[in-house]
């Protein structure tokens, strides 16, 4: 596993970080657009209503108001905002403006005005008459016969999968292996529990924002905070009926995404405004708008039934998931599928399995892509059942996991059965460092010293430790495509053009490192340009933990082609054969003659001397498989048995992401995901009033962690070297968010003997659980 690398495996400086730290780097709203129109949106105050009339007379009379868009003057083109590949596995159920309002926060109209103040004043001056419709808030009743129906017959899935708007069914998934009944009959005992996870927000610190202008040739240029510039171009083209050739999408620095900026919902609005007025336009959402009208993590109900033999063998497992997608079906099918496909293969020795899932519409905020993507929700259930099984059969949880988890050379039928909108792809695991993760993590948390000890740390306070294990994927196999092109400059530097989208993760740096490794040069010699649909080749964008593995392999292929050309020129210059040449730090040496050339010499020769040509190449990559990273995460908690308050004292994550290309950035992904996961577990929640209105759409009331809330944190990288990955790499972006919810629940049980079935673990909810189980102390 200890491969020798020059740049890979080193924590080189993130290439954009100094300009960010100095405040020089530009984000979408930092671009000065002369005389730009400001767009403000009027939102539905009702969860479910029909617009009877819109009167914009007064609003248009406000000085500075240029245009007001609404369902009567904008063509109704049903599409999905999901920002996925084509055809999307999400329903075409969304119009830019519709006559029916489906949640508090749905879009009624948008005003384009000379100033933000005028736009906001006009929003208030629009008169709308609504006819309220009965709202649907409870996902459990969404498919009932008498439930209010949210979408009409024109809402359609663009791919052939089950979808039934008449039953509010946005997606359905079912897979089965073996004989479930037989499996449960063979069991000595059966566990059956229901778990609920809540709505949550991404909370990228930069709000959603887009800007647009017409270039000198009249093409539409959109600068936008997106994870998916090429999908933006395609979706805007379709919705606004503008040819793709007339649209350019630029992603500048973006202030965090976490899946939230995969959603394409502002770009068509600035595009519409600019295309129809000829004026630059911009929109910058307020924080309450981000909470309510952008996308969320889908809440899920997961019922898990597990049949177990007394020796711990799981003979049958049935997972039934009900996902609430809110008003529109963004990522309805794929998040649900991922809840099975990224989770069930982990314990691959279970022969009898059924996964059944439904995603339903409700008149609540819209779900979308969010780091973890369904797996975080279902791992909550699975990890608690694994903990229960180990306990009930008298085994140490770590030994139990080691015995039953998927290993190198093994597979799971789930890989093939469950994909993204179609069947998945069979694969055999080629790297798995989970055992080492378990051992190193256990040592770091002090597992064997603390487990089951119920240490009383103060009156009423007791401690416990818990474990969560999970896997994720590395891109979507046979679907996600990334590409790269490179050209060489006569000083021995290289331009690297990638469609891949750095949303703050450092993927520009990672991809530069991969190129630098291949060419044997310092990373400083790579000049990265990414995410501009006019200048860079296609890439699906930043989602599904794909960039390092899929786009990284494209970069590696591309750089290898460039290297070949370099050696070809050098061979000519040195009168040698390319395979007699060696490269070391930008110098090509011919051992036999002792002659050497620098990259600069070679490029200069190629450009100016003889048979001139530009040393350049491009390459694309799709992956035939999606090797999972693995993680073991440990929480130590202190529970106040009098109040229900849980304090996480220490959190350890040991992750196998293959060869980390840049260890500091890999750790940063884990640490960021963990802290996000901790507040997802403990404090983050959407509170709604009886009308379906979110009552806490601000950071003061949607509590994400600050510096002061951190537990002691430890992150351990376990290098398993994935042979199919670029320089051994697998993904690391999402996986670490899976652990906090189950690890804390399992630690809580270790401390108290009480199970938690519902997130977030707010003090009052936990207090009630302790009361139910007679575990409260005075």
């Amino acid at each position: 596993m200890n491969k020798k690398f020059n740049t890979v495996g080193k924590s080189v400086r993130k290439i954009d970080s100094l300009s960010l730290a100095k405040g020089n780097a530009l984000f979408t709203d930092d671009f000065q657009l002369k005389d730009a129109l400001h767009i403000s949106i009027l939102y539905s105050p009702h969860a479910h209503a029909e617009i009877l009339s819109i009167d914009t007379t007064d609003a248009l009379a406000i000085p500075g108001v240029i245009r007001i868009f609404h369902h009567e003057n904008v063509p109704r083109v049903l599409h999905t905002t999901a920002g996925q590949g084509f055809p999307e596995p999400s329903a075409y159920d969304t119009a830019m403006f519709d006559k029916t309002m489906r949640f508090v926060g749905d879009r009624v109209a948008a005003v384009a005005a000379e100033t933000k103040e005028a736009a906001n004043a006009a929003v208030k001056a629009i008169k709308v008459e609504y006819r309220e419709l009965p709202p649907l808030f409870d996902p459990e009743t969404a498919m009932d016969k008498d439930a209010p129906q949210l979408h009409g017959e024109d809402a359609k899935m663009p791919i052939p999968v089950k979808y039934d708007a008449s039953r509010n069914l946005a997606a359905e998934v079912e897979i089965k292996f073996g004989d479930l009944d037989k499996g449960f009959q063979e069991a000595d005992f059966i566990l059956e529990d229901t778990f609920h996870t809540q709505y949550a927000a991404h909370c990228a610190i930069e709000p959603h924002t887009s800007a647009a202008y017409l270039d000198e040739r009249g093409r539409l240029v959109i600068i936008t905070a997106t994870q998916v510039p090429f999908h933006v171009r395609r979706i805007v083209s379709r919705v606004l009926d503008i040819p793709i050739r007339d649209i350019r999408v630029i992603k500048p620095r973006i202030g965090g995404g976490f899946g939230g900026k995969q959603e394409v919902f502002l770009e068509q609005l600035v595009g519409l405004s600019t295309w129809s007025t000829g004026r630059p336009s911009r929109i910058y959402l307020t924080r309450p708008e981000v909470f309510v009208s952008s996308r969320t993590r889908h809440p899920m109900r997961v019922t898990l039934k597990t049949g177990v033999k007394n020796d711990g063998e799981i003979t049958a497992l049935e997972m039934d998931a009900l996902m609430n997608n809110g008003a529109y079906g963004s990522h309805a099918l794929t998040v649900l599928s991922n809840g099975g496909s990224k989770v069930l293969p982990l314990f691959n020795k279970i022969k009898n399995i059924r996964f059944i899932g439904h995603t339903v519409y409700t008149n609540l905020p819209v779900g979308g892509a969010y780091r973890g993507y369904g797996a975080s929700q279902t791992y909550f259930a699975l990890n608690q059942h694994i903990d229960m099984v180990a306990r009930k059969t008298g085994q140490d949880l770590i030994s139990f996991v080691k015995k039953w988890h998927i290993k190198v050379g093994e597979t799971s039928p789930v890989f093939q059965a469950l994909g993204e909108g179609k069947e998945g792809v069979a694969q055999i695991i080629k790297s798995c460092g989970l055992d080492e993760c378990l051992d190193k993590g256990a040592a770091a948390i002090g597992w064997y010293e603390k487990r089951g000890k119920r240490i009383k740390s103060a009156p009423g306070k007791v401690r416990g430790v818990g474990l969560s294990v999970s896997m994720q994927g590395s891109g979507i196999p046979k679907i996600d495509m990334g590409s790269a092109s490179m050209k060489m400059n006569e000083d021995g530097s290289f331009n690297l053009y990638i469609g891949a989208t750095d949303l703050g993760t450092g993927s520009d740096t990672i991809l530069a490192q991969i190129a630098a490794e291949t060419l044997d040069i310092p990373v400083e010699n790579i000049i990265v340009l990414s995410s501009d649909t006019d200048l860079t080749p296609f890439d699906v964008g930043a989602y599904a933990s794909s960039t390092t593995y899929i786009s990284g392999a494209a970069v590696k292929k591309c750089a290898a082609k460039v290297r070949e050309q370099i050696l070809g020129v050098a061979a000519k210059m040195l009168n040698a054969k390319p395979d007699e040449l060696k490269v070391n730090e930008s110098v090509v040496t011919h051992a036999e003659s002792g002659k050497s050339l620098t990259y600069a010499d070679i490029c200069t020769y190629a450009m100016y001397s003889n048979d001139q040509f530009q040393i350049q190449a491009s390459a694309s990559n799709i992956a035939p498989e999606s090797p999972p990273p693995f993680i073991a995460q440990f929480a130590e908690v202190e529970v106040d048995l009098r109040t229900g308050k849980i304090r996480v004292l220490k959190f350890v994550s040991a992750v196998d992401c293959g060869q980390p290309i840049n260890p500091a950035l890999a750790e940063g992904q884990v640490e960021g995901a963990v802290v996000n996961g901790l507040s997802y577990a403990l404090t983050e929640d959407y509170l709604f009033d009886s009308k379906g209105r979110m009552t806490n759409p601000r950071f003061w009331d949607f509590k994400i962690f600050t510096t002061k809330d951190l537990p002691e944190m430890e992150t351990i990288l376990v290098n398993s070297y994935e042979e199919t990955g670029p320089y051994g790499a697998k993904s690391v972006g999402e996986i670490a968010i899976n652990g906090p919810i189950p690890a804390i629940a399992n630690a809580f049980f270790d401390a108290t003997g009480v199970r938690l079935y519902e997130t977030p673990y707010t003090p009052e909810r936990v207090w009630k659980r302790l009361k139910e189980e007679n575990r409260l102390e005075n």
Partner: protein
Amino acid sequence: MKTKLTVNNKPVSVQFSPTDRLLDVLRNNGFSEVKEGCRDGECGACVVLLNGKLVNSCQVLAASAMDATVTTVKGLEKDKAAPIQEAFVDAGAVQCGFCTPGMVLATYALLQENPAPDTRQIQQALDGNLCRCTGYVKIIEAVQLAAERTNSHE
């Protein structure tokens, strides 16, 4: 309304309406390094030094900052700011970087007062700056690194 601010050591004449916030006035005058994350005083992306004090510029009415001296991340004393910025880079504390100007300013204000802060003091000083990318671990390390480097130079 109008006033003359001193922003990053240069006089800047600004116009604004009576309820405008300092954040908007700064951004409208080209100081795009001051970021808007919440307009609610919690995220800290918009912090500046106002007459030397770290404040949320979204919580300051421009009309209350007549003739004020404002320092953004670009106007800090270079010899004191550079070690902080370099430490953030070296510690891997910059991911998306949207919070970073605010984090650097909060660190600067802290180190002015306390050149050798412990972890708790760092956590306290950065409590007004949200970051969703890093989990703060490397940010806290960056502040420690900046303090060490600054102290070893003096």
